[in-house]
């Protein structure tokens, strides 16, 4: 004779499986705190341009806010994250007669006048320069900055561990 099916097994309520989120919460909290801390120490004043390959250096000067331009192998560009405007193009840069770059000089003078009007001109400029830009281009950019009375030039570099 066959046994009658067990009533206990069929009627037993299935236990609900709950996912413990506590350990995941701990992990998330640690990641969040780390990210917040790294945000506050870097200051977020300068963001490396996606259009450039910045050089490495052992310098340890903290970034500061100033007028910024980008110097790439395409020429001198406005500091924009998306589709930056070309201030001085390749023709201007390669022209041997150009000791001072007319496009860049115009841009710098305009900015100087703007800052002069609100009393904020300090002659400081931050240059993000691609590591492959040649020395003759670099000298032209420096000469133009000097001509437009931007006498304190800071180059943005990636800090290298010594």
């Amino acid at each position, binding site marked *: 004779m066959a046994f009658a099916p067990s009533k206990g097994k069929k009627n037993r309520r299935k236990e609900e499986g709950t996912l413990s*989120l*506590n350990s*995941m*919460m701990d992990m*998330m*909290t640690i*990641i*969040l705190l780390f*990210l*917040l801390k*790294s*945000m506050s120490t*870097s200051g*977020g004043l*300068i*963001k*490396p341009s996606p259009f450039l390959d*910045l*050089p*490495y*250096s*052992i*310098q*340890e*000067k*903290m*970034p*500061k806010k100033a007028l910024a331009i980008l110097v790439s192998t395409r020429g001198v560009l406005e500091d924009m994250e998306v589709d930056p405007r070309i201030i001085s193009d390749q023709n201007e840069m390669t022209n041997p007669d150009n000791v001072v770059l007319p496009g860049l000089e115009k841009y710098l003078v305009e900015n100087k006048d703007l800052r002069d009007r609100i009393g904020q001109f300090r*002659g400081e400029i*931050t240059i993000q*320069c*691609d*590591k*492959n*830009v*040649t*020395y*003759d281009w*670099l*000298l032209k950019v*420096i000469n133009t900055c*000097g001509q437009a009375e931007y*006498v*304190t*030039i*800071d*180059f*943005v*570099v*990636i*800090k290298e561990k010594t």
Partner: protein
Amino acid sequence: MAFKPSDKKKRAPESIEPNITPIMNLMVVLIPMLLSAARLTELSLLEYLPPAETSTTGSGASSEPPEESIEKLNLLINIQPENIQVSIYQSVDLGPNFFEIPIKSDAHDWETLKDSLILIKQREVGEPVGTLSVMDERSGEMKTIPKYRFSDGEEVSIAADGGIPFQTIIRAMDACKYYVDGKAMKPLFPITLLKQFQ
């Protein structure tokens, strides 16, 4: 007959867990946002100060020679694709005052350049002979700087062939900044002037 004490009193209180799902949702949004904004590379600034007019207002002892009689070192580093030329006292004849450092393993030899600069600093410039109070034309503030027997005892001019990439110039500037003497970091030639190739 007395009633039996209620079982409810003895029942252990159920632990109530807070609902952390909304907090988790917040974290899931915040973390990708912060990750996208985080800078994984640490940026720094390399300061380049082109020569500016400075006026000396005080110079210590009265026995000091006038400014005109102070010698100049004229340290110049010429970077070429095949070597680095180092010159002092405007010398152009090969010897202790003008020498070339050839490239090593297809790269410029910055270690040898640094060693040469340390030698020049120690042999030619020496220790500071006093201090100078100088008015900085840019900031308009007075500052005290070390005074060497050369008026350009902390300066180096760097010139390069037109095709030399910017990274190479940065390496040269790094090599000129300071050196480690024992445990102390001492300035080498921290004031850099970029010049036309000579």
